[in-house]
């Protein structure tokens, strides 16, 4: 029975989560600033002399236009979703209290969420998780920047990485530092928390992906996690760097943000 127990645990978790999905329609429950990334090509992945094998080759990839949250999802926003959908608070990394009673952390990014939690939140908000390509373009722009701000080496003063846990001081507020923004004005795309994206992970994908609107491999066992976190080394906070983890993984350094396609203006005139 030893094995059945694991399988049962995993299956029941998946089943439980899938029944919890909320299909409230398109109402905007998540009034957060979103940035528009216009349609067009960008340089995805890394050149031969930079980055790792699974980020190569660097290729021109075309994406339709989309909007993406300018910040990581905060505890405040996530707790609203929790209340609206009768879910339990995520694990509180700061104390034994319930997370919703820990008032001083409302502007810090939510952590201790699984990939399914992230998917459900974005669906509830009428959005979806960005694809890996959407996330990477939003982070580095079209010219193949190494980091959101360009190619300058980061310092631990201006970017939250290479740090040990220091309680409430560990994570930085989602509002971020403006001089470290991405070309589209996004905050926190390097360090602070790693971010779940839509795609399955495959080490071969950057070789094989379609060059227009890639959606990730059809199947896999790990999801891609982008951007690195407070404990990451420099190589892991590069925009092309590809973290990975199972969809049930929860840590004190994984959060997310949501994206949304831009519909044709004609369809919107009636509302």
């Amino acid at each position, binding site marked *: 029975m030893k*094995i059945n127990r694991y399988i049962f645990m995993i299956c029941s978790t998946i089943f439980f989560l899938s029944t919890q999905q909320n299909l409230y329609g398109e109402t905007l429950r998540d009034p957060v600033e979103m940035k528009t990334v216009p349609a067009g090509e960008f340089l995805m992945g890394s050149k031969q002399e930079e980055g*790792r094998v699974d980020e190569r080759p660097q290729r021109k990839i075309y994406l339709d236009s989309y909007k993406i949250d300018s910040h990581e999802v905060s505890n405040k926003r996530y707790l609203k979703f929790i209340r609206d959908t009768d879910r339990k608070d995520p694990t509180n990394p700061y104390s034994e209290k319930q997370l919703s009673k820990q008032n001083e952390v409302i502007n810090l990014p939510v952590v201790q969420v699984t990939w399914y939690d992230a998917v459900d939140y974005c669906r509830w908000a009428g959005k979806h998780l960005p694809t890996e390509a959407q996330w990477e373009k939003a982070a580095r722009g079209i010219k193949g920047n190494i980091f959101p701000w360009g190619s300058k080496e980061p310092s631990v003063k201006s970017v939250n990485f290479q740090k040990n846990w220091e309680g409430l001081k560990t994570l930085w507020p989602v509002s971020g530092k403006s001089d470290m923004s991405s070309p589209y004005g996004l905050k926190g795309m390097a360090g602070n928390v790693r971010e779940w994206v839509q795609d399955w992970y495959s080490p071969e994908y950057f070789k094989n992906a379609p060059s227009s609107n890639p959606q990730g491999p059809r199947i896999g*066992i790990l999801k891609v996690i982008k951007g*690195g*976190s407070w*404990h*990451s080394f420099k190589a892991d906070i590069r925009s092309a760097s590809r973290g990975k*983890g199972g969809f049930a993984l929860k840590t004190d*350094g994984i959060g997310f943000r949501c994206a949304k396609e831009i519909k044709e203006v004609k369809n919107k005139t009636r509302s």
Partner: protein
Amino acid sequence: MINNLKNIYRRNLVISFLAIFWTSIAPQLSAAATAVPEDMVLVNAGGFTRGIDDTKTENFLDEAPAKMIYLSSYYIDKFEVSNSKYTEFIIATDHPAPAYWDHRKLNQPSQPVTGVNWFDSDTYCRWANKRLPTEAEWEKAARGPAGSIYPWGNELDYSKANFAKGKTGQKYITSPVDAHPEGISYYGAYNMAGNVFEWVQDWYSSDYYKLDETRNPKGPQSKETKSIKNISTKSNVGFKKKVIRGGSWFAPAQSITTTHRFWNNPMNNSYGVGLGFRCARSLSEDLQTEARSFYMNALILVGDEKYKKALLSIKNALISSPKNKEYKALKLLIEKQLNP
């Protein structure tokens, strides 16, 4: 008569030479035996019982039949690879961080690295000039020559390992890699039961123990997927699997026995179970020692005037140590005897 005298003289010469040789080589041999690499333990060459004949539950069929397996000498890490060791590796190679890197209850320097897949583990060991242990090597290092059920003996004991979330079921973190010294194995390896599951070299096959590979087995040759249908109780997806061993901090008690076999997709680095590893290393002195024993054998054969056999033996010694002057000299001497 003269020939006989010559022979006696020659035999005495050889015997006295042997005696001198032994006194000069013996300290070197014992020195070699004590030069165990830092934080590794030596598992001496020899047989051990791999697997267990348990007919009570069909889930344990992949651990049967119990069989005597011979392994050459090897070293194995005394401890699971720690976050602090893994940090050195990341800094040196720019390797990506493991899945639980930013989980504050699992990422302390003394805790085992958690959230690595098979490829990460394999890459680390090669970087450290080591390799992953084979499944058989892992099992021998865990259970010792007496074939115990747990590394420390045959009684389940919550104080000797970190498993099933502790005795209270509330403990949700890994122990430092040097914790539970009272639970070490016969060979001195720590936390071979519980703490984190450990990747080993071998592909998994439920039928592997039924095969007749009893000398340094290295696991199924190909990435077997054929037998998965027959073991539906143990498989959820038809993927190629690597063996993981030893149970974890929240795995139930029955998964921390020294014979328990579990598996995972080599790409997987998370999914609930704690995935870590330790490394092993073959003895580089093995070939030297082997050459020495061929040389000794040749000397004895010369003493007995069995020159043809002696020539074979000294040629074998020269295969491993082609430049050794002693060996070359003895070979010349034997050849002269054969073709005066």
